[in-house]
């Protein structure tokens, strides 16, 4: 590894650091089905890394490996230079990894504010009893966390729906609330599972701007899965391409775009 560990600055002036997370020869099986087959790639500090591929390529499985939801049968996940042992997702979250879901997973009956507050859970230390009594340290902690949450509400421009129950919101806004909740955890690495699925052009543009702003403003490293090729190519610094659980391409958007194997996977190959 570490051959390419030196830092560089992108054309638009963002600093890309050394390797943050490395996936080493990952293989993931469900019974006899091989979802991911011997894949290796890395994610560097400060970059926007996309994982693309046709349906069923194993993208979401890959994201679930990164988030600790799945444990690969073979291979290692190396986070900040240390091999990550098998761990529960909440432990992974405590390491600074947050995610959004392909199918929105918010608390529909709760307000936007409360939903985003749940993103702060990993930062709260007082116990359930203290919080229930809202006493002493619990009070200070809540005020501090609310402040953090309000910054994110401001950042994502959702002030007007602060007190609205999530269930009443349109789809595009729910997606934004989910991003807010993930951001509330102040993650080092943010995983986005199809952040723009089902959105119209305008909502996609908004979301793209937010993703770029998050990366720029907070220096958050972002790994995202997305179907919309235009969006992926515009947003990301580097792209991994998967097909049938294998990695078939890895590089800058330009490199990937001209890779014959990728073109074949996406457009199909004529059998003669």
């Amino acid at each position, binding site marked *: 590894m570490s051959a390419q560990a030196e830092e560089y600055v992108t054309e638009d002036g963002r600093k890309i650091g050394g390797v943050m997370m490395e996936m080493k020869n990952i293989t993931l099986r469900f019974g006899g089905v091989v979802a991911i087959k011997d894949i290796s790639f890395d994610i560097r500090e400060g970059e926007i890394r996309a994982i693309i591929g046709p349906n069923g390529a194993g993208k979401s499985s890959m994201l679930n490996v990164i988030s600790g939801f799945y444990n690969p049968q073979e291979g290692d996940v190396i986070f900040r230079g240390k091999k990550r042992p098998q761990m529960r997702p909440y432990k992974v979250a405590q390491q600074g990894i947050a995610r959004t879901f392909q199918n929105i997973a918010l608390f529909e009956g709760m307000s936007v504010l409360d939903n985003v507050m749940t993103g702060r859970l990993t930062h709260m230390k007082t116990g359930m009893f203290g919080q229930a009594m809202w006493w002493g340290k619990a009070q200070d902690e809540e005020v501090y966390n609310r402040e953090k949450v309000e910054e994110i509400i401001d950042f994502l421009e959702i002030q007007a729906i602060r007190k609205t129950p999530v269930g009443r919101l349109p789809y595009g806004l729910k997606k934004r609330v989910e991003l807010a909740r993930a951001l509330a955890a102040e993650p080092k690495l943010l995983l986005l599972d199809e952040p723009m699925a089902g959105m119209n052009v305008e909502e996609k543009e908004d979301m793209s701007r937010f993703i*770029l702003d998050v990366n*720029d*403003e907070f220096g958050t490293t972002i790994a995202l899965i997305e179907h919309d090729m235009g969006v992926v190519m515009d947003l990301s610094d580097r792209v991994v391409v998967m097909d049938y659980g294998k990695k078939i391409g890895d590089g800058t958007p330009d490199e990937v775009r001209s890779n014959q194997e990728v073109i074949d996977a996406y457009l199909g190959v004529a059998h003669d």
Partner: protein
Amino acid sequence: MANTNTGHMGAETDLQSIPALLARNAAKYGNRPAFREKEFGIWQTDTWAEVAEKVRDLGLGLINLGIAEGDFVAIIGRNRPSLYWSMIAVQSVGAIPVPLYQDANAEEMAYVLGHCGARFVIAGDQEQVDKVIEIQEGLHQFEHMIYLDPRGLRKYDHSRLHEFAHVLAQGRAAADEFSPELERRTAKLNFDSTCVMLYTSGTTGKPKGVVLSNRNIIMSSKASAEFDRLTHEDEVLAYLPMAWVGDFIFSIGQASWTGFCVNCPESADTMMTDLREIGPTYYFAPPRIFETQLTNVMIRMEDAGKFKQWLFAKFMDHAKKVGPAILDGKSVSGMDRLKYKLGEYLIYGPLKNTLGFSRVRVGYTAGEAIGPEIFEFYRSLGINLKQLYGQTEASVFITQQPDGEVRNDTVGVPSPGVEIRIADNGEVFYRSPGVFVEYLNNPDSTADTKDSEGWVATGDAGFIEKSSGHLRIIDRAKDVGKMASGAMFAPKYVENKLKFYPNILEAVVFGAGREYCTAFINIDLTAVGNWAERNNIAYASYQELAGHPQVLETIRQHVSEVNKSVAQDEMLSGCQIHRFLVLHKELDADDGEMTRTRKVRRRIVEEKFDDLIGALYDGSDEIFTKTEVTYEDGRKGAISATLKLLDAEVQPVAKGSMAA
């Protein structure tokens, strides 16, 4: 500092500029709130002393950047305290603030920035910065841009771009060096120096830069504040465009004069919530906002339970009967008073609280005519809503309604210090200390509007009612015309009657030089959409709803009712609408059909839809049309539709009722 060097304060004429007023406020009301803004969910307050300090730092920072006296500085963004302070800081260094409409597109912005030759721009956020960067090539005098919200701007080329906070910090650091210069420049300001330049939205042609002096702004603010007894304890909500003269008078002029507190909402979307939280005592809104609020109340009432609906209807009827009289201090029977008290407790109070009007002492509406029902509704609740008539060129005030003399169909008596004259053709002229200095770089227009004795043509036709001395406005003078029969044609008069129906958002009436009148109608999507939902009528788009047969039938009834009411007016009975159509798109400022203050540009609509007007007069039943539309991001597209042309019921016109 408090009262040491203010021996002369009695002589208020010493205070000849906004920065001078700010200094007085900092001394007199140092610890009182001057500006509030909701940020991160909490209202953040700055006192007058703190504002004075920030304005000073920004002034020093501007000198540090090389600002010269007489420079124009464009201010673009939503209502935020920092932008208001920027305007005062710009004045304090002898430069001229030019607030611009934040939703202006790049092209419109290029025109005004080029016209005044702005050297500096102070922008609210990335969106505004982007617009200026897009057009900066064509702006030869433009040098520096300062931005408030740094979000998304980190990567931009900062050779001409400066963060607001940094400019302040640099100013503070350079205080020793530049303070004498700042003090020298501020001390030079007097009644004759320019206070602000505002671009009029212009229903016709290019916007004109109205130059207003300190005398204009301060004298108008003083007179109007005394008229309504405004004090430093009042609260206003600043949410109308900063480029509009009204906002400048309220949030800068009157606020500086009286020392009251200006509150800025968190974002445009949260305005209603913020209004409720602040509960202003002095409130201004165009009729459209009152209308929207009333529509919302009515829609929500329809969802309420039977008992609540009954209670609401019962007490609102009572309020209509005695509310306005109680408000005007007229005699009302004890029983009615008691019943009104009960209503206040059960309905009016909670309703006012929901609307954010619990504490309103003085409320104004202007800009357009307000529907009698809407006006009545608010007044019957005990909200002292009044009308005023004003213009940018007058520093707002021409006429206003005194407490106790409020009526729906007049715009009040001349404001203190204002003289009014009606010309032979009915056009209203005025003269006052608030009358503007000139249109920038446009002596011809200045001379057209203002004569050598200082009389200004309003462009509106009206008359003074003999019995009450109140002014009544009929229409734009140039829009008032004659029909083919010679009868008087006043489109606005009819349009306003149409617009009083909640289902009708906008109407444009044609008929000058024609046999009969016709109209374009825009439906109100909120009201009609709600009706459709209630009646299980499915629709996929605005266009589809606008063309629905039942909607058309409802609108036809409205038009027929309006005709009945128009027929009763002797002078204007010829203006009944014979044929009309419901437009397939909303008239929009982005398409140039309306001004940014949402007034219809009659000529442009006439040109753009001349095929539709033709069809209204040639007797056809329907017409296919294709219209170009501009999206918010500037892209263009086209929509096409087949529109039905409908006949409305017309009342017979008595012979001999020709206009004078």
